[in-house]
Structures are given as structure tokens and as C-alpha cells.
């Protein structure tokens, strides 16, 4: 988690994803595509995805997370696109309402306080932006959290 923090701290360009109500910052370079939500085929899977989308010839699982980061199985009209990530060659997507570029110099980064860290936590850092705190993550942390890939300790 600390290594991830140091990498995030050196990242210059982030994307702020607004999913339901809350926002999440990810390194902009880790987003491989934005796809319109109209291409989503709703068909819940065992992984808890909302559905799938065809992208570069693959069927990509798409997830919707609420503010508590729980997987949701319904779509609402506010979700306009899917952000597609590539984790070790496995694609997955997150439903988003908005995406906004954010530069590193707009953020004051901080590690997750030690007393709050959990092994399965999706966040890798916190950032102050315009008096608010936004959570930071990366593709691998998201993929592990969503069950797209397994951690090394999981085999």
C-alpha cells in the first residue's frame, strides 16, 4: 500500500470519476477507454457485475459501485459512460456519471492513516482538493477489490 502511495504521489495527471455521488481519483494513464453506456448489455454475473460491453473484440464486465463501494445491479439515467481499465491484460469497466481531469498540483496527497488501513481496502491514498477529501486508487487495487484478478497471496 505504501509503494502504491509513492507511485500515486509521483503521478501528474489524474482522472476524477464520479460514480454515484462520491468521487474517486485514478491515474489518467491507466484508463484505456471511455465507452458510451448505451453499449452496455445488462446481464448480472457471478462477479457482481451489472453487465458486459464489447470492447476490442472482448466481453468486458462492467460494474456499478455506490458510495459505500458496494456493487449495484441497476442502472440509472445519470450514468453516461463506462471507464475501461486494463489490469494485466484483463479488461473491466466502471459506470460513471462524470469524469474530470485533475492535475497533481491541484491535490494535497496523504497516505491512508495507519489506524484506518485494511488489507482489502481499495483506496491507496487520500487527497485534499478544494477543501474536500477524495479517495485515490489504481487499476490493480480496483481489480482486486472487484474480484477481477486475484492477489499473489490468493494464489
Amino acid at each position: 500500500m505504501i509503494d502504491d502511495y509513492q507511485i500515486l504521489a509521483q503521478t501528474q495527471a489524474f482522472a476524477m470519476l464520479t460514480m454515484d455521488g462520491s468521487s474517486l481519483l485514478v491515474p489518467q494513464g491507466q484508463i484505456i477507454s471511455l465507452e458510451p453506456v448505451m453499449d452496455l448489455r445488462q446481464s448480472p454475473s457471478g462477479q457482481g457485475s451489472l453487465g458486459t460491453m464489447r470492447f476490442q473484440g472482448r466481453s468486458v464486465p462492467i460494474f456499478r459501485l455506490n458510495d459505500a463501494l458496494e456493487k449495484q445491479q441497476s442502472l440509472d439515467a445519470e450514468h453516461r459512460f463506462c471507464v475501461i481499465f486494463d489490469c494485466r491484460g484483463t479488461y473491466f469497466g466502471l459506470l460513471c456519471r462524470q469524469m474530470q481531469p485533475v492535475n497533481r498540483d491541484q491535490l494535497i496527497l496523504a497516505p491512508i492513516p495507519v489506524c484506518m488501513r485494511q488489507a482489502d481496502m481499495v483506496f491507496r491514498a487520500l487527497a485534499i482538493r478544494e477543501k474536500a477529501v477524495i479517495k485515490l486508487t489504481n487499476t490493480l487495487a480496483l481489480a482486486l477489490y472487484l474480484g477481477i484478478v486475484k492477489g499473489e497471496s490468493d494464489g
Partner: protein
Amino acid sequence: MAETTAWLLALDRDLYAAVGKAEIVHFLEQPVFFDVPGSPFYCRRVVVWQNRVLPALDLAAWLHGKIPQRDRALVAVTVYQDSPGSTLSYGGLILSSMPLQIQVADEQACDLPQRPRTWQSIAISCFAREGQPVPILDLRYIYSDALMLV
């Protein structure tokens, strides 16, 4: 008779604790909390103070094993060192009311409260005030990952 100044902290309606006078540097009377999903139930939120992100630790929740009812929640900004000579670290402690500055004498030393038993993990000593034991908090310990392991 040695006397020292301390802060008496209301962790909730029933639980009181104390820290040294120098261990609190600020109070946020109307804190703005930000949720951090996935963190422990007793420390699910953070606050911003002087461009720092501080954990908002609810010790009463940890001691009771559930989030207590509060009419209001304010945050004491506490300062501690992870080890002697290390840089200062800051943390937020959720309180039910404004702390009270009190004088504590050596003669007031007493045993820790029997309940909750977990007081023993987080207190460095205890004193009696108005017939009630008041544990003195080990700030370095409570802001470490140790509470998850108790």
C-alpha cells in the same frame, strides 16, 4: 504534591478519558467528515485540518463495539510522536462535548475501570475524579494499527 494539567475528554455520554495538556492542539467544533469506505467501523471518516488529512477516531465505538448515539460530535486534534525524536503526528479524536481542562495530582492515581476491559490496551494510567476512574490515553497506540488486533 505533583500536579499536572490535563484535558478531560467525553468520548460519549458515559465514557471519559484524559490526555496531557500539550497533546491537544485544536478543536474542530463543527467538523466536516469525509467517509472512507472499507476502513474499520470505529474510524470510518477523516477530517481536514491545516491541509492535513486526519483520521477521526471514535474510541467510544471501539470500546463499546458499536457506534454510540451522540447529540453532537466534535473533534479534538491530538498530537503525538511515534517514537522519541520522530516528527509530530496528528490525529482526530471524536468527542461528545468540549473538553474540560483539569488539574490532576499524583495522589489521584487509581486502577483502570473494569469495563470495558479493552481500556487496558489503550490507557497508560488512570486517575480518580469525582469518584470515577479516568483513563489516560496512549495516543501513539490508538493511532497505530493496534486497535484492529485487540
